[in-house]
């Protein structure tokens, strides 16, 4: 096949590209320039689109022996990922930008462009697997569950999965680093990237405050009694306990947790730990990574965070919303996050959580 390898400058995408070449594919390396004013140097584990990273990607492509180009996706990234991130926070939800980037950039803008140019698909260094089944290509967890990234890929449609190649899904991260070393790739020991790539300081709250302002608002209890103030409701997340700055103690001295964020009134609602419990979640805009889900109730697992646990549940699709009923309640669940349904290791599909109870 003729493939585009998306190369971030990290170890995973470098080894993925090398493996695709070894598998006999005709591979071209592409680094996505996602920031319109990239920083020169990478700082620690943050960011993945500095100029230094693009040099690392180029060097890896040269060592592997494949052509290399830089694609400017800064505008698409800004509109599809950064703006969405801000809008979601402004609406009181907690978005996952990596998921959005896979949905709108890597397996949409890049894959579409690649296909139009005559390529068959896109190779990435994601830890996930695909399998060919009777119903087509399906998405599965990586062998290395601690590195599994199927959660952030769960927004891919069947059509997108068909064009996605994940050569690392069968290997642990430790072995990928060893392999990179053996292949002579200088990025073998480069630190993993964490956090949000477009917030180079790592200070998400500060970054949001700079863009969304810091309008003071009330922190109230479940009865609506004001017990404190905050500087921007969006800097809180459901289930958060620390940093509330509350001086009025509860009657029994038990801690308070963020239960709800109400962006319209700029209010943060807090309450007791048990009030965080969620048994049912509903998600909008579902995407099926394989055969679609119907009204019939099925058994499976739901995951609500990138590296969270797979929680046993019953699930069904009511025609508009994807509904999951947990066997055991979960404490603290933010809307805006993705709920991803698994059938064993297979990703069934995902939806954006819009309602919890």
């Amino acid at each position, binding site marked *: 096949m003729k493939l585009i390898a998306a190369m971030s400058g990290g170890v995973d995408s470098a080894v993925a590209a090398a493996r695709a070449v070894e598998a006999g594919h005709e591979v071209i390396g592409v680094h996505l320039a996602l920031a319109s004013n990239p920083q020169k140097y990478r700082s620690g584990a943050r960011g993945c689109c500095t*100029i230094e990273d*693009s040099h690392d990607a180029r060097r890896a492509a040269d060592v592997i022996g494949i*052509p290399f180009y*830089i694609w400017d996706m800064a505008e698409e990234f800004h509109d599809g990922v950064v703006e969405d991130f801000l809008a979601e926070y402004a609406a009181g939800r907690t978005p996952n930008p990596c998921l959005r980037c896979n949905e709108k950039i890597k397996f949409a803008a890049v894959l579409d*462009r690649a*296909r*139009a*140019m*005559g390529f068959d698909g896109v190779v990435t260094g994601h830890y996930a697997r695909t399998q060919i089944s009777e119903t087509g290509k399906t998405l599965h967890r990586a062998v290395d569950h601690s590195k599994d990234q199927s959660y952030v890929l769960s927004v891919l449609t069947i059509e997108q999965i068909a064009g996605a190649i994940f050569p690392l899904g069968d290997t642990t991260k430790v072995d990928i680093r060893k392999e990179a070393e053996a292949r002579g790739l200088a990025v073998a020991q480069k630190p993993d990237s964490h956090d949000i790539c477009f917030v180079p300081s790592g200070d998400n709250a500060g970054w949001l405050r700079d863009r969304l302002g810091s309008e003071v608002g009330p922190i109230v209890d479940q009865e609506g009694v004001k017990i404190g103030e905050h500087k921007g409701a969006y800097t809180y997340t459901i289930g958060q306990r620390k940093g509330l700055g509350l001086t009025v103690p509860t009657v029994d001295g038990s801690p308070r947790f963020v239960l709800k964020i109400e962006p319209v009134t700029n209010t943060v609602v807090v309450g007791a730990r048990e009030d965080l419990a969620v048994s049912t979640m509903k998600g909008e805009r579902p995407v099926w990574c394989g055969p679609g889900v119907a009204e019939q109730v099925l058994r499976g697992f739901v995951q609500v965070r990138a590296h969270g646990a797979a929680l046993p549940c019953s699930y069904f699709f009511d025609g508009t919303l994807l509904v999951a009923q947990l066997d055991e309640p979960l404490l603290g669940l933010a809307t805006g996050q993705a709920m991803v349904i698994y059938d064993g290791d297979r990703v069934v599909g995902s939806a954006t959580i819009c309602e919890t109870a």
Partner: protein
Amino acid sequence: MSSIYVDHAATTPMLDSARTAMTLQLAQLGNPSSLHTHGRATRKTIEDARESIAKQVGCLASEVIFTASGTEANNIALKGLYWQGRDKGKHVVVISAIEHHAILDPAQWLADHEGAEVVLIPVSSSGVIDLDFLKDLVSTRGQEIAVISIMHSNNETGVLQPISEVVAIAGEIPVHCDAVQSFKKVPLSFSELGLYALTLSAHKIGGPLGIGALILRRTVEIPALLHGGGQEREIRSGTLNAPSIVGFATAAESEHFNAMNVQDLRDGFIEGLNKIVPDASINGLKANRLPGIVNVTFPGTQSDTLLLLMDSQGVSCSTGSACSAGVHEASHVLLAMGHSVESAQSSLRFSFGASSTQADVDYILSVVPDVITRGRAANLS
């Protein structure tokens, strides 16, 4: 797979004769500044080369200052002539809007750090500088102008600039000319043009990388950028790079670039393009141009996509400039000629050279339809 090189404006294949001369010199021992036999031998070789290059560009041997690149020569000239003028109360730097970054950026640096006011001369839609603008500027603010720097021909479009007219308008104002693209491609004489300074580069004419020259009028003394041993009229210190200088001179002496042949190839290419992609347009078509450069706008495409597709067909061409992050940017040259950002970003440069053949042209034309079709599809995706 085919391997067609049509990026001679970026760099050229090194001539066998230049490589041989350079290799022989690499085996020679002696610092040209040393007073002993070894030193004198190297010095003689360098001075032979200097005289040879001087002859080729129509200047005195003493006017040739060797540098490590065209960029360095441009920096020495622009900054040096500016500082010289500033000492006399002149603070205006006049350049064209289509200069290479090796002039644009030093000019900007002078504005940011040295108190210069930079005035850009606009160009016509054909890519030729506006002489009336310059005339007005010189007549109203001539006393304030420290230096005028205009390129001999543009590296992206190949459009030749009216340097004689610029010098006539400038009168006593020092004029520098970046001639790296023109040298050995079109007639060029430093003395006939009446310039103060001129920039040359070896690797654009079949010589080695890493060697250039600033031709600086004999009596002009400007401050140095590199201080040290005082080589090269104390304007450019540093041990002279004898092997590269020899390679440079050998390339300069060579008459391998046949302008008529290259121009015929170029014109045939343009004719073929017009048939295959009727809405493609050649930038600067109406102007006098270098024989080898063709800059084409393909509506509805993106240059970087086209470059990838051309490259995967074995054709090496160029998209113009990229920023430090490697992202392709709209060419300031095409923007200055009136292009929108969108159309400037749908342009490719093909630059033919002495080694180009009709077979190259035929091959490129054979892959153009598929490249343009895919490029347009990718642009819509």
